[in-house]
């Protein structure tokens, strides 16, 4: 009896291990675009227009880039311009294109122990947080958001690493997990606006600092180099990039809203 059941289970797993024959591409992307629901909105339209299914792996930008370097992607869609340019320069990807932007915000507890509410200078806000030694939750995971946060700290002259584990808390996890931690311990943190707006567990944390030009957040899209990775589906991947940066994709991005608020602003070059 046991062996018959085993054989049956084996047959079951082998029969369906490979997926159907519809063309599909693999996109390594960031959690912010996936968690906000943008892909749920965009991808069905693209698939309807082209018949190409899109499989998205949503991880931090650092991990997405590393996965793409291992050839485990056809297209890379992330938000860390300098890291993306380095990726292309090293020959891992071909031609990076701007796709869209949004912005980061600093969120924090409503009682605002560091007194940063209403500031429009992110660097000044971080300085005050460091002076007050108020809790700050950092992604600490080499993601696009983490890179931005590190760049902002560099401008302040404060050294958060010295306070790591004290008031500076590196969660080493994704945006959602870091927001959950920030809400749980009443900490400040840096988040992209799309993730924040769609986040369901805000507690008494609110947006305190926004509209600093330094908080600009550019997303780019790159085809993984077919020379370097012969398995890359060049044609289908390029079709996706062309669609995203073309009229249909750009207007679909602009139409996407969370509770009536537009969160991604298309800016692909004409």
């Amino acid at each position, binding site marked *: *009896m*046991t062996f018959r059941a085993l054989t049956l*289970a084996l047959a079951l797993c082998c029969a369906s*291990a490979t*997926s159907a024959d519809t063309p599909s591409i693999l996109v390594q992307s960031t959690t912010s675009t996936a968690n906000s629901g943008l892909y749920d909105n965009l991808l069905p339209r693209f698939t309807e227009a082209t018949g190409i299914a899109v*499989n998205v792996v*949503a991880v931090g930008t650092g991990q997405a880039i590393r996965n793409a370097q291992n050839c*485990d992607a056809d297209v890379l869609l992330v938000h860390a311009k300098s890291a993306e340019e380095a990726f292309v320069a090293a020959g891992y990807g071909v031609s990076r294109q701007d796709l869209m932007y949004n912005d980061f915000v600093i969120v924090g507890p409503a009682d605002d122990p560091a007194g940063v509410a209403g500031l429009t200078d992110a660097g000044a806000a971080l300085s005050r947080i460091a002076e007050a030694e108020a809790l700050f939750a950092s992604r600490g995971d080499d993601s696009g958001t983490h890179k931005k946060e590190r760049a902002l700290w560099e401008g302040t002259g404060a050294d958060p690493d010295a306070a790591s584990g004290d008031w500076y808390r590196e969660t080493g996890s994704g945006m959602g*997990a870091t927001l959950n931690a920030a809400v749980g311990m009443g900490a400040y943190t840096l988040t992209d606006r799309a993730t924040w707006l769609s986040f369901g*567990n805000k507690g008494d944390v609110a947006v305190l600092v926004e509209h600093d030009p330094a908080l600009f957040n550019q997303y780019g899209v790159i085809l993984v180099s077919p020379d370097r990775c012969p398995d890359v589906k060049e044609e289908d991947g390029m079709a996706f990039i062309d669609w995203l940066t073309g009229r249909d994709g750009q207007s679909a991005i602009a139409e996407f809203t969370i509770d009536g608020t537009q969160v991604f602003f298309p800016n692909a070059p004409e």
Partner: protein
Amino acid sequence: MNDMAEALRIAVTLVLSGDGDLWEIVLLSLRVSLSATALACLIGMPLGALLATQRFAGRGAAIVCINALMGLPPVVVGLMVYLALSRSGPLGTFGLLYTPAAMIIAQTILIAPIVAALSRQVLEALHLEYDEQFRSLGLGRVAAIRALLWDGRFALMTVGLAGFGRAIAEVGAVIVVGGNIDHLTRVMTTAIALETSKGDLALALALGLVLMVLALVVNAAVHGVRNSEGQLAHA
């Protein structure tokens, strides 16, 4: 604790509404973890039987190693399988990364040591009991192992369930090698991780409740099989 009540409400609504996405995720979870359990039993039980019945140099070390491997961290297994199946890895040409097959492989590696170690324990006790009888019957090695596996089948079912429990509950390995891709590799645990990261704690908890019910159903089914067979045997 509003989330608790809300989670329960969502869980009941999800299950009753026959939500298509939920069923897809539930079925994939079952397919992956049951396949991995089956493979782990095929590998682990004979291995456990060998360790239980044979005496050879290095046997003690082998038993310690297999026992230690029960503590394999899922995320480490995930990482190793990722590196092996990655396009730039040694098995990259098969294109298995980010497929259910990759998830089955990772979970098999994760739970085969559990099945082997527990089988060894169960069968060793049984072997002590039967050894003399086997000898008087003049049974060969293979026949003796087959007899042991058959007579120990009820205890081995529990061993299989322990492996299944570990497989269906783990998230670290499947999220790395499966990628949590919607409609392709999303299973219950990765969906729970996703909803938690979206801050939708009630929905995450609701999925957790559904997962627990699922484990309950599988355990009850095995229990049912065991009871009906047990009754037949004693009839």
